[in-house]
């Protein structure tokens, strides 16, 4: 197949012809046509729920279109992932789709295990997998089960899998959501390289800078409908955002928050845990403290150990409750004393996807809903209603299963869970990962409002602009230690990155 690769750069490889996809009543994709040419990097943007993933899933044969067809080299391909793969279409899914218990090599070769005389040839498998990893310039122990790997590494393994298929069309659905800036740059370099070599690449991201630095053309989807397709050269980020949200978005620019920090509310001393080596940290009332660093630096581990979510091997944590310092022994104690935690793995740890929005929101607020431990669905829905409006859930249907909502909306629900408690402290781990610009702006607003109301906020983010915009102070973590601390004014992307990577020592008070 890939012998035609070199031929006809710029010719249309894959074409979606007036695709419509309905899920029951809901229209996810509405009569959308797109086409991708060899050698180009083609961007697909839109808010959460715009239909990007659904459309891509249809191209990759994971979903059947309700109407319309997918053409490769002008001829329709039959449905099913197999057919799509054989036609040279490889999709890197938005949700990690790896088998935790299988090794890196097996995951890369999943579905195409090389066999020798009927039995799997481990040697071959390691060879191809190794080649694929080398192709993307990442080296990992091929025999490590992926369950042991970091989120970011898993992302690269997914990409390696796609590359190993020797695709002609490579589709990446928000691949950078779990990556740090450096890793993102690295990935983008790689994509350009692959494109130069004649691949057709479809790239989905909520991060416009990436789009503008990398892509050739961009299509905007809104509510499942095709809004516009432009050459990147002919548009600007603001124009793009307007097309995405459908109206003039009120943009929150570097509004240097007038933060007047109060007393230290959350105080951690000498926290140690696996991959965390003695971290001290204070968060004051009304202050937003950011934790920067590379994926794998141990930020998540630190906060999880600090809050008692995971086992803390050493150190101790106190929180200021009505003028008294309370020691936090267990995670439940933390919650009891008004600490809220928005975990990194939204779908796994943050939400019960098969339960309704109101169920999810009511859970941490059990104590305040009803009295004497007695509650009811009606009470819970009544309680959830206003919170859902506060975070701007769309659609604001508290009876709907959380699983039916798209990424950004799910994150809003996770935050809404905690607002009801009027928390003293809120800890957010990658709060806007995979969240669209609109929702992202709203979440930022929420976080800042919380701070303004005197909540002590601790944010982990691998999204530097976000970290810089939100944080009053940034602690940069490297290898489980604080590598440096930057005040708002002393902080910029470079200083953070250099601390994170440990290239040189930038310090400021």
């Amino acid at each position, binding site marked *: 197949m890939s012998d035609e690769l070199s031929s006809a750069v710029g010719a249309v490889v894959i074409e979606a012809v007036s695709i419509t996809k309905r899920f029951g009543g809901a229209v996810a994709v509405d009569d959308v046509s797109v086409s991708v040419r060899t050698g180009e990097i083609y961007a697909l943007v839109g808010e959460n729920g715009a239909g990007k993933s659904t459309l891509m899933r249809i191209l990759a044969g994971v979903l059947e279109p309700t109407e319309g067809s997918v053409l490769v080299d002008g001829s329709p391909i039959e449905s099913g992932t197999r057919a799509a793969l054989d036609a040279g279409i490889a999709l890197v899914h938005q949700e990690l789709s790896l088998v935790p218990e299988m090794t890196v090599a097996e995951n890369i070769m999943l579905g195409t295990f090389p066999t020798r005389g009927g039995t799997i040839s481990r040697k071959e498998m390691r060879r191809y997998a190794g080649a694929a990893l080398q192709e993307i310039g990442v080296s990992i122990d091929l025999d490590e089960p992926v369950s042991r790997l970091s989120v970011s590494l898993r992302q690269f393994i997914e990409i390696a899998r796609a590359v190993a298929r020797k695709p002609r069309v490579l589709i990446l659905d928000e691949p950078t959501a779990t990556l740090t800036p450096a890793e993102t740059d690295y990935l983008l370099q790689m994509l350009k390289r692959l494109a130069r070599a004649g691949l057709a690449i479809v790239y989905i991201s909520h991060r416009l800078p990436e789009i503008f630095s990398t892509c050739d053309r961009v299509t905007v989807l809104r509510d499942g409908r095709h809004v516009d397709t432009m050459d990147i050269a002919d548009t600007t980020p603001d124009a793009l955002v307007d097309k995405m949200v459908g109206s003039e978005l009120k943009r929150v620019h570097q509004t240097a928050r007038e933060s007047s920090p109060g007393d230290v509310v959350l105080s951690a001393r000498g926290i140690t845990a696996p991959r965390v080596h003695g971290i*001290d940290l204070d968060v004051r009332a009304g202050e937003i403290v950011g934790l920067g660093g590379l994926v794998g630096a141990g930020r998540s581990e630190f906060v999880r150990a600090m809050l008692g979510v995971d086992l803390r091997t050493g150190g101790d944590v106190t929180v200021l409750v009505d003028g008294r310092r309370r*020691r936090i022994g267990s995670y439940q104690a933390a919650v009891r004393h008004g600490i809220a935690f928005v975990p990194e793995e939204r779908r796994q740890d943050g939400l019960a996807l098969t339960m309704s929005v109101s169920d999810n929101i009511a859970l941490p607020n059990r104590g305040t809903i009803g009295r004497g431990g007695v509650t009811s669905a009606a009470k819970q829905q009544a309680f959830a209603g206003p919170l859902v409006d506060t975070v701007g859930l769309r659609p604001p249907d508290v009876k709907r299963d959380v699983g039916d909502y798209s990424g950004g909306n799910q994150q809003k629900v996770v935050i809404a869970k905690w607002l009801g408690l009027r928390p003293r402290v809120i800890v957010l781990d990658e709060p806007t990962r995979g969240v669209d610009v609109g929702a992202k702006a709203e979440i930022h607003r929420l976080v800042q409002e919380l701070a303004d109301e005197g909540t002590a906020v601790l944010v982990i983010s691998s999204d530097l602009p976000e970290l810089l915009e939100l944080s009053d102070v940034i602690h940069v973590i490297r290898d489980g230690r604080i*590598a440096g601390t930057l005040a708002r004014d002393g902080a910029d992307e470079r200083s953070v990155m250099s601390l994170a990577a440990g290239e040189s020592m930038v310090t400021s008070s």
Partner: protein
Amino acid sequence: MAAGRHRIPDRPRGVRRRPRPESEQDMSTSHGVTFGDDSVGTRADQLRRTLGRRTEGRGVALLAVVLVVVVILEPLVFSAYPVTLSRIALVGLVALGLTVVILMGELDLSVASTAVLAGVVMAQTDNIAVGVLLALLVGVAVGLVNAFFVIKVGINSFIATLGMLFVLRGLAIVVSNSEPIPLENISFAISFGLPIVGPLTPRIVIFILVFLVLHLFLTRVRAGREFYAVGGNRQAARDAGIPVDRRLVTGFVVCSVIAAGAGAINTLERTAADPTSGSTVLLASFAAAIIGGVALTGGRGSILGTLIGAISLGTLEVGLTLTGVQVDIQQIFIGGVLLLAVMTDPASLRAASFSLRTSLRGLRGRSTDREPTPSHDATAP
């Protein structure tokens, strides 16, 4: 086709390979993207990691304990190993098939009933060969029905097979008119219970063969290995183009056929079909699999583990019988050992110590009045 895809030259096609520029080099290292290969430490270190990936730990531990205890109390268990082996085969054969289904993240509660029905059907004819064939056909049929409900209708296997548990048992009673059916060719049936290979009876030989076949299938054969993907992350398996439904059908059929085979073997060894037999099969099989480290959530475990589980249970039972301890006390003992086995699993101990330590911390120092010492800036010198 697949093979074709993978006959790649070391230089992957389509992409120009150029030595990665420095920048990228340290990009990949300096940003924690690179670890693993290079970080592979000493032999011991490597060994530890390989062991860390095994799922049979608990089974091995239990087996060790059992063997030590038994060797001290009742060496006869070993000197009369054919007896012990056939008890192990009795406990373990169905468990092997069940493991296949569990690895796919499904369950089959109907195995015991399948075995019973197969036996009863087998006894309907005088010709043993035909009978065994019929029995195995019952297995195939049951497997297909289970798979149909799980895949086509889309109800989960726990329920579908719970229903089948009742249906098949009922059919066995109906067909047999709720009475044991003696086999015609009793002399053959009896000889079937006698050793054929050295001291090993057909039951043991078949058990060993089934173990080997399944072990190879799940570790070496592509379709078999893909069962782990089906159980570990079904969506991923689908996305990767694995024919998940076909794998599921295979799994259910394999499991049911093995159960039916076990039913046929039992019927032969007893020289009669018994519609009320197999009361202990289902739970014993589950016990063997789970002790062996097979996770009911799928994707994790091994046939080897199940074998180890079966050996532990079988040996323990025989040993206890020989000690002649009162039956009730034997039961208490077996229960206790099982409970211990699952509770002393490393993961379990970790979970327990975690909740213990946190709750202890919760107790001491409910509140303290101290100002936080100013955060000394942890910047490196």
